């Protein structure tokens, strides 16, 4: 099943099974069905439950917050993640603060869905991965399904199980990709939080301790890592990939089996500095201070704008050539 299809099916399921679920966003109604077609067909099926909003991202999140407080389970769509800057105050000072300030008296089960990431040549203001600016906001779960996760299942968890606001990030490149089936060339195990499991992927069949390198990543980069891992099966390079779905928490680190941590690589699509990779690196040093034998390495784009030229964008963002070279350098 395609990643986008899973999301659309989940929205359909939610609308069908919970009359408190509403979807709000720009251009989400049929026949257009949303900028990335995530809601295609749904407004025809549930005409009263999809609400088309004006071009006001702040309003979209504020309106959703209000609905959530009043007992609904709104899913709001922000057309491009780059536009989240316009919603920042609503998220920081309203949606996430109310449950913390008013404890059990107020709940805000709001889901903010948004596509992020580059790779389509959409230019500097439509290609960013800016989740790092939302990590660490108290009371906000930031979810980003990888190619190994079923994004629809995660969306259902976020909507009907999670009681706090969720920023649900969908990587644009993954929309057209098939969710990676378990038990294909790579072995996948899911650990941790049942709402937001972490995928542990191996490209070898021997003991997990025999890995050459561990790669931590999430979201769109997972698709590149999948290809690297498959390519490197015949090259005997044993890779473990750790792909969390809930990137605002590092609790999964305690659940990872006892493995060798000689070489650790963290890859993130967002720009370098003050990001998920830095925080994870710090947590790993805390956890493994007397076990790490080599410096933790990171790949993130430099702190600059994403080029409009597709060729230059491909070189700017983490790519398969760069990642393979880094792995070989680390092992050499």
């Amino acid at each position: 099943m395609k990643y986008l299809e899973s999301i659309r099916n989940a929205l359909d399921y939610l609308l069908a099974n919970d009359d408190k679920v509403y979807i709000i966003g720009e251009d989400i109604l049929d026949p257009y069905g949303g900028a990335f077609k995530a809601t295609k067909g749904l407004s025809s099926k549930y005409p009263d439950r999809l609400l088309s909003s004006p071009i006001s991202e702040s309003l979209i999140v504020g309106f959703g917050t209000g609905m959530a407080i009043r007992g609904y389970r709104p899913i709001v769509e922000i057309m491009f993640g780059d536009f989240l800057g316009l919603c920042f105050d609503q998220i920081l000072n309203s949606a996430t603060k109310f449950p913390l300030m008013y404890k059990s008296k107020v709940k805000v089960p709001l889901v903010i869905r948004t596509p992020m990431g580059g790779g389509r040549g959409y230019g500097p203001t439509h290609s960013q991965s800016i989740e790092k600016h939302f990590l660490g906001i108290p009371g906000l779960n930031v979810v980003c399904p990888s190619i190994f996760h079923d994004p629809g299942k995660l969306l259902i968890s976020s909507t009907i199980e999670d009681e706090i606001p969720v920023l649900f990030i969908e990587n644009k490149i993954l929309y057209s990709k098939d969710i990676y089936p378990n038990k294909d060339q790579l072995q996948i195990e899911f650990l941790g939080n049942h709402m937001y499991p972490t995928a542990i992927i191996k490209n070898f069949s021997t003991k997990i301790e025999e890995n050459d390198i561990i790669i931590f990543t999430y979201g769109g980069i997972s698709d590149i890592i999948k290809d690297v891992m498959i390519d490197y099966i015949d090259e005997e390079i044993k890779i473990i990939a750790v792909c969390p779905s809930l990137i605002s928490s590092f609790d999964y680190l305690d659940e990872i089996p006892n493995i060798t941590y000689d070489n650790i690589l963290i890859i993130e699509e967002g720009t370098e500095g003050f990001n998920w990779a830095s925080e994870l690196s710090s947590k790993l040093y805390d956890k493994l201070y007397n076990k790490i034998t080599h410096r933790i390495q990171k790949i993130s784009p430099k702190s600059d704008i994403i080029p409009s030229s597709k060729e230059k964008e491909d070189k700017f963002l983490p790519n398969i050539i760069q990642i393979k070279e880094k792995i070989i350098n680390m092992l050499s």
Partner: protein
Amino acid sequence: MIEIIKVPFIGVNDSDCVLVSINIKENTLIEKDTLIFEVETTKASFDIYAPFSGYVYLKASINDVLKVDAPIALISDLKVNKDDLFINYFSNENKSKTELGITKKAEILINKLKLSSSEISICYPNEIITEKIVKDFAEQKNDKLKRLGFEGIERVGIIGGVSGGGALILIDSIINSGKQIAVAVFDSSPEFENKKILGVPVVGSHDLIEEWFKLNRLDSIVIAFNKNLNEREHVFNKFNSIGIPFTNIIDSKCDIRSTVELGKGNVILGQSYIGPATKIGDNNFISSNVCLEHGNILGSHCAFGPGVFTSGNVQIGSKVRFATGIHVEPNIKIGDDVVISSGTTIINHISSGTIIKNK
């Protein structure tokens, strides 16, 4: 070992460049890091250096326009037939090395063990060279060399200690034990360069060590100076952090008892006694006639003059200097960065940073 020399990444503004200079002769031995090619883009020129010592075989020519990652030449650690080599590498340009007969893991191991892929390929014709094949080959090669007596003796580099005599006593101890061989002394004093200590040449500063190790000219190192323990620690950490192995020098006239645990980079000279169940850290210099009795725990980067005697279950921290003729009573704890002068008898615990003067 064979590697394709390719056009490197030349910036986001250019996808191709011109080969403007070839600075070497084909099929002539060149050293690692020799400047071999220059390529030019619209805005800048880029230098390309030899990744290891070997023989270069040209694929591109002057003024060729080349894309990023395009091959310019091959470099081989052994002299080879260019035509055979090119058939093997360039008629299969788009194939992975696995398709060419060697896995990337095997290649990495070959480079780490400083083996020759061409030599291995000869021994395993028509097989994909895997990690296991490389390991088996390395083991067989080592066994063969040892049986012929060509290898098996550890080659040790000595750091410093020329002016203080540390290098002399270390080399003397190595000669007497016969299990290791001192191959060089690394000391930056220009007055000592090219001189020999018991036949071992002083070759220059310890900055040379990394290159010597890469060229497989030594197997391990040990620090001979101990006048400045902070400097001793610094030098140890410097080389340890980049993976240069340290070795222990233990005189053949030492008495090391049961279940002693020893770190690395330690020096223990003649007539010294290390009692059972004693633990010793790294990079300690223990002179002759030192006794560390049973159950002692010693940290790292310490220095002992001759005639230091500790009783049982003494704990000593790191960077502690013992002068000569010192006695330590049982169960005493000595902290870090302590200095104890000659002729002292220690009967109380000593906290870190203390200087004990003999009245």
